[in-house]
């Protein structure tokens, strides 16, 4: 998240817009952004409380034993200029994350930025 912010010039050089979606309420995200001075070059969106986007993108983590357990998987998607999903990476463990360098490499390799 913060790593992406630091790497925004590289993303912009590739013509890429970074969009982060969270299940946290927008007010919580805004407080986090302010506390971390995360800037505003990324588009940060809140899928709270509906979680409709998580469902549509297959990134909703659920638990049959708890109806309130509905959290986001950590996942990355590369969507090309025509709106087509080209690459996807869903992390098994949300504590694992891809670095900005890794995502930039994937972006270049995908050909979506050309």
């Amino acid at each position, binding site marked *: 998240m913060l790593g992406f912010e630091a790497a925004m010039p590289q993303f912009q050089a590739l013509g890429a817009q970074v969009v*982060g979606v969270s299940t946290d309420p927008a007010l919580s995200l805004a407080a986090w952004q302010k506390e971390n001075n995360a800037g505003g070059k990324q588009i940060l*969106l809140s899928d709270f409380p509906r979680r409709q986007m998580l469902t549509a993108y297959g990134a909703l983590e659920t638990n049959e034993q708890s109806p309130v357990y509905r959290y986001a998987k950590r996942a990355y*998607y590369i969507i090309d200029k025509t709106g087509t999903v080209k690459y996807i990476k869903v992390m098994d463990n949300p504590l694992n994350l891809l670095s900005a360098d890794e995502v930039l*490499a994937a972006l270049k390799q995908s050909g979506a930025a050309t």
Partner: protein
Amino acid sequence: MKTPSTVVLGVAVILAATSALAAPDFASMQVTPYEPPKPAPAFSLPGLDGKESHLSDLRGKVVMLFFWATW
């Protein structure tokens, strides 16, 4: 005195170590091609300012979309 095979082995080890330090290997990241490519599901979600953003607003741009939370 080093034998030729020892020298060759040493060079191979150095080359392997150098390649390991190179840029991230795309294949090892297991970022998988989405086959067959499909249209990204449309979305309309509020941003931090409360203003709705739509995927269609970004048509013509490459989008690196990620899901996250303050885990």
